[in-house]
């Protein structure tokens, strides 16, 4: 699953726009992930993040 480092995230929404499963959402100033949609395989969100706020954790 993906882990969002809230102290690093700049809540910009870049990851939201590229998530192919629509699993991410920016609720005001915090990013959320819908784990029923995220498959944690594509790594697109952790790649695109300008700050490095999204890390993939082993199950």
């Amino acid at each position, binding site marked *: 699953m993906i882990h969002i480092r809230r102290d690093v995230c700049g809540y910009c929404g870049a990851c939201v*726009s*590229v998530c192919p499963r*629509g699993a991410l959402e920016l609720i005001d100033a915090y990013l959320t992930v819908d784990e029923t949609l995220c498959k944690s395989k594509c790594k697109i969100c952790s790649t695109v*993040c300008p700050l490095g706020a999204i890390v993939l954790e082993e199950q």
Partner: protein
Amino acid sequence: MFYGLPAWGDRTGGTMKEAYDVLVVGGGPGGALAAKAAAEQGLSVLLVEKRPAIGAPVRCAEGIGKEALAEFIDPDPKWIAADLDKAVLIGPDGTKFTIGGEHAGGKVGYVLDRKVFDRELVWQAAEAGAEIQVHARASAPIMINGKVSGAVIHQHGKTYEVRAKVVIAADGVESKFAKWAGINTTVPLAELETCAQYIVNDIDIDERANLFYFSYTDAPWGYIWVFPKGHRCANVGIGIAGTKSGEGHRAKDYLDRFIAREFPNGKITELIVGGVSVCKPLECTVADNLLIVGDAARLSDPITGGGIYNAMYTGRLAGEVAASALKKGDTSKKALMVYDETWRNGHLGHALARNYAVKEAFIKMDDAKFNSIVHSMTDLSLDEITVKSLVIAIFKANPWLALELPRLLLTL
């Protein structure tokens, strides 16, 4: 219909009604112009902005052309941070090419103060009669028979079902609303510029020049900008392609290296981050009862990343088309298609198509080619800052490009 309907007269949100003619999702320039245009036609309009404040946090380098801006609003010193008369393109080896300057005839552009500018636009929408609700987030469309018919709105811990005959999705780069309604708005990773920007104070800059640094090494498949914001102060930022980003080489890493090299004594007073799409626009920007505008429709410029004008233009158009469709009593996809056709077949659609082709042609060049192009340009003077005039000048000075990019000239 309502979950937890607040008591009448509750000023913290109780004014939200059960139904409107038009619901606008997002309070940026696109949403503000859409709400204003629709309200001016006498429609009942609700604009919801999920942030507690309009205009903040800024997600923008804040540059806009003077002529483009003048289509919508008279310039006001309140929200103009800098008045520019030239743009300077800087190649990988530091060679500069200036466009505009003394001969620009008072044109070129502004750097805005978006926090103030966005509030002004939303205020104008409110003055026109639109209802504004902040810290109010749309979490899902209401779908009836497969058609958008409103949205579920969360505000101050309460949930509302707000019906609307037309919804205008102006929710920016995230573009979730249209996605929830079944439209694929996902940006390909290679076509999402991931950006970081500092406001840097106490630096030596030309306060009338926007600088653009093009270098694969320093900003792969993107560029670095220095946009003045007044005395010894500038937005200094970078966008790189999503596919060029990764651990240790993210937008902020590149920007920190640039700042250390160019402005080692600068004082950083703000960090913002963001994403800008440089892909083609959505294949279709309407559905039954739904119009999609600005960044949410993937209408930011593929070369510059600029999106303010495109959002304002499509926002206003969407508001007008919604009003005209409502008057005729038909807000089907077919009836709203005039919105898509108007922007796509007009100057905006043509500029986006051309700039996409130009971006595709130039983005993957290596630094040796960038250097060669900038060197060839230094003796030229170009007064007009348009993509077309710039590309023609580049081709004239670099005949070899016609062999590499034979089809590009046809798109101009």
